[in-house]
């Protein structure tokens, strides 16, 4: 249990460092992968709903503090994203890599939907603009992150196959 906590702490710390140092240089037309979201997704799939909710909340809160936005906005979004991804916990169901990729993309949509919903409520805006914002940047960002997700997803599948043998 303690070992798992340390491992996940290291994963999130590494993702945070990469997100703030390396990832900006990987931007293509302003679209960057979200390694923190990927780490949250992987943790949610591995550990389940409750840890994903709390970790999502902490990650979101840290993003709220580091970025000048409404306090609680990212916390709420990441909490909901963690909850959504945690529903597909591998202890409950075994999914193949393609489905996992689709769930990752949907997790991005849940996250961004919550963010834009808060934005609409706090500062006004039409639902049409929210829809446009979500379809515009969210999908490319999710796809770009999906490229980075291939390695951990395949690694996970490989380790499962090895364990079964």
């Amino acid at each position, binding site marked *: 249990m303690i070992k798992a906590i340390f491992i996940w702490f290291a994963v999130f710390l590494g993702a945070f460092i990469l997100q703030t140092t390396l990832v900006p240089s990987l931007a293509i037309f302003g679209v960057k992968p979200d390694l923190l979201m990927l780490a949250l997704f992987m943790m949610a799939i591995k550990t389940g*709903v409750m840890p994903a909710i709390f970790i999502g909340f902490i990650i979101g809160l840290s993003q709220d503090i580091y970025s000048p936005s409404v*306090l*609680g*906005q990212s*916390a*709420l979004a990441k909490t909901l994203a963690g909850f959504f991804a945690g529903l597909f916990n591998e202890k409950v169901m075994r999914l193949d890599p393609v489905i996992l990729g689709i769930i990752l993309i949907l997790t991005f949509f849940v996250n961004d939907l919550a963010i834009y919903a808060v934005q609409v409520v706090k500062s006004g805006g039409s639902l049409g603009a929210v829809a446009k914002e979500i379809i515009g940047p969210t999908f490319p960002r999710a796809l770009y992150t999906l490229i980075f997700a291939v390695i951990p997803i395949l690694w996970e599948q490989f380790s499962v196959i090895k364990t079964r043998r």
Partner: protein
Amino acid sequence: MHWIIEFIVRYRNFCSLVFTVVLSLLMISSPENRQLATVRFLTTSVFYPLQFIIDKATNISNIYEENRRLRQEVVVLSSRVAAFQEQASENDRLRGMLNLAQNFSYDFVPVRVVAHDPSDLNRSIVINAGKNQGVLQWMPVVGEKGVVGKVVQVMGGLSLVQLIRDPANRTSVMIRKSRAIGILENSNGKDYYLRCRSHENVAVGDTVITSGLGGIYPPGLHVGIVVRISDSSDPLFKKAWIKLSVDFNHIEELFVMRLSPQWSAFVHEFDSLGFTQ
């Protein structure tokens, strides 16, 4: 109270979600000044230490990058320094040769050494000038420090130079101070000596120059200095050991002196006597 705990444990996922969502909504709906106070509190108490660790980790990665960049710069600068040193060295040599060319009123052909004799004795060199540049057989070859040898074979654009260190090369030399004349000899390709009469006034440190006899080298070209005097097997002679002034292992730029041998006027007479060059 008990049923509340039981409810929370039973529906812990749902309760966790509700708790964090409510907390988030409370933060979102709180006034701006309270949000700022919360941010300040969280920054100083929780995130500042984390940021400190991240900054350190980032700095370490920057140090590695900087170290790599500096190493690359060191390599580039080292190669540039080596090139500058080479140019400075060449500059010194060429200045020396220019002085030499100005000190003598002969016509000089500047040449470069293109090949050395691969043997240990290093008896000859090949220079990058030949008939096309007006080089002829028996022309003396000099460097900025003194006489090097003579051209023994001429091709179109190359010539073979026999060095004075070659044991087969007999050069007539003279002690500048005492004017004692002798033949530069060596037995093993390393130790050179001049056999001169016992009564001649020869001392260590005396300069040895070409005598001008023999018809190939003009008089006065620097050959070396006397480093030791020793007795000869013949009591009438003594040996003055000479250190040659030219470092034959490091010759690069030289001059061919455009001089015809003094005996060239008598070459037909030599031919009639049956001598071959």
